[in-house]
């Protein structure tokens, strides 16, 4: 569906993205992940035909975005970071306008608008001025705008940024509901969002792709490693030395106080048992011991910020 080849974009002397290569097949829900300023929005803008790449090419449904932008734009629904809504228009009129702009046939405009309103739960506010809507509703109008022409590809640039937790959950549910009908690219720097909605992740840092895989595979990257979060009644000055003669312990991180620690261990459940019995045996008063698999967040941090540490100051 989407093919990106050697995509490069320079803003003056600054290279925003550097030779990106990836492809997305029909029906995929792909999370586009990276820290702020990694080049996510730039890549999305190029795919939508909003701007041209400096080098390389991108194509949607077989049409090159630069050679044939109109065909590409017909097939794309795009939600930019700031929803492109006209404050002085009514929700319904606005969606009608977008539908006409996206060349929805005249007789289908009404049903398309109705459909988009239904999917995004905007029924209650459809006759209100966009100006009077809350941020969450504006965001939903933005999504409605993207899906009103029933596009093959849906590109959402940070769809949940700046919303309250309930609204975030609603938008996520909405994206889940849209799965299967569209090919979706979702950019974000919020990890649970990707975990909740996407099947495939592309992690991008400083304009380069650092990982591209399914979520399942990515979160298993550090296999056999378990992080234990322990909370004790008594404070321990130096946990490292306490655990020094246990071979399975890899690293110890200090927590919020001397009573909380994160311990990375290698091995299976026996290693967990060893640590717990040691802590109990020493009489520290073990209150809590939670095993946490190394999750996407760790993988992400390691792939993006970890590189910086290795490569010296960026």
């Amino acid at each position: 569906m989407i093919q990106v080849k050697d995509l490069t974009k320079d803003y003056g002397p600054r290279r925003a993205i550097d030779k990106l290569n990836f492809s997305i097949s029909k029906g995929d829900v792909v999370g586009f992940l990276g820290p702020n300023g990694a080049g996510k929005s730039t890549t999305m803008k190029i795919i939508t035909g909003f701007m041209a790449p400096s080098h390389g090419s991108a194509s949607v449904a077989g049409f090159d975005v630069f050679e044939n932008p109109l065909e590409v734009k017909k097939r794309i629904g795009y939600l930019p970071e700031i929803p492109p809504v006209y404050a002085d228009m009514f929700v319904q009129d606005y969606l009608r306008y977008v539908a006409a702009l996206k060349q929805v046939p005249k007789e289908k405009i009404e049903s398309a608008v109705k459909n988009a309103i239904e999917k995004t739960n905007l029924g209650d506010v459809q006759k209100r001025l966009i100006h009077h809507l809350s941020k969450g509703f504006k965001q939903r109008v933005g999504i409605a705008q993207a899906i009103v022409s029933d596009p093959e590809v849906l590109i959402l640039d940070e769809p949940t940024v700046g919303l309250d937790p309930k609204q975030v959950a609603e938008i996520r549910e909405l994206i889940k509901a849209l799965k299967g009908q569209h090919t979706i690219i979702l950019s974000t720097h919020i990890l649970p969002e990707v975990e909740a909605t996407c099947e495939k992740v592309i992690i991008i840092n400083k304009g380069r792709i650092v990982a591209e895989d399914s979520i399942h595979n990515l979160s298993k990257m550090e296999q056999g490693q378990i992080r234990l979060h322990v909370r004790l009644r008594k404070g321990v000055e130096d946990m490292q030395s306490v655990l020094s003669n246990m071979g399975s312990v890899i690293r110890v991180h200090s927590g919020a106080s001397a009573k909380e620690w994160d311990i990375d261990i290698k091995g299976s459940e026996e290693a967990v048992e060893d640590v717990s019995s040691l802590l109990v045996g020493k009489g520290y008063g073990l209150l809590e011991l939670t095993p946490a698999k190394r999750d996407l967040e760790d993988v992400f941090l390691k792939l993006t910020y970890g590189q910086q540490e290795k490569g010296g100051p960026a």
Partner: protein
Amino acid sequence: MSGTLVIFKKELKGFYFNSTFWMICFLVSLVFSWVYPIQLNLFSQLLMNYVMQQGVPQNQLNIHYGVFLRQLSYLNLLLIFVVPALTMKLFAEEKKLRTFDLLLTSPVTSFQIVMGKYLAALGAVGGIVLLALLYPVATSTLATVNWGPLLIAFLGIFLVGGVYAAMNLFASSLTENSIVAYVASVIFNVSIWFIGIGTEVVDGERARKIFEHVSLSSHLSGLVEGTVRTNGLIFFLSIIVLFCFLAERVVESSRWR
């Protein structure tokens, strides 16, 4: 439905369903309701006493010159400041509110975007010109009016409004800031009248001719007297096309900048 038509309809609604436009119309009619009757009164006094007055130019005894053309020059003055107020938001606000992203990711060409917006601006300018035309129409109940020259004169001022709209659309496309767009537009509108001054300072016959041809007032003067010359029409159309083209280039440039 082509993109031009969709954008045209939306922008035209944006003008006519917006209180700003009606506010402007109200203020324009306020000005005319004050100056037009005064002009008319002066003209009728002149007619009553013309035998006694020496040296009154012959054409001042005609209502077309004595009243209507004066009204047109006031209308022109108003348009210089009113058209920028109408067009300043057309691109600047879209850029500021990021709704421009929507236009640029929709299957419409830059040409269609500019044409839709320009035609809508023309629709709004036309509304104000029609509003001004109401005054001569009302006068026709009191006096005999020669409709041909009158309508051609109004067409002339409408074309000048069209030139303003094109230049101001271009000014609006250059910036995100409506105020900057407004100020630049007014400067454009005022300065186009100064090009003609060149005729008075150059010596060469050829240079003088050139300045005469690019002067807005020399082309307008034919129209306001009721004569349609093709070179005048072509001149107005070329300025409009030039600035619409420039605006189109600016819109297009956001795709590769």
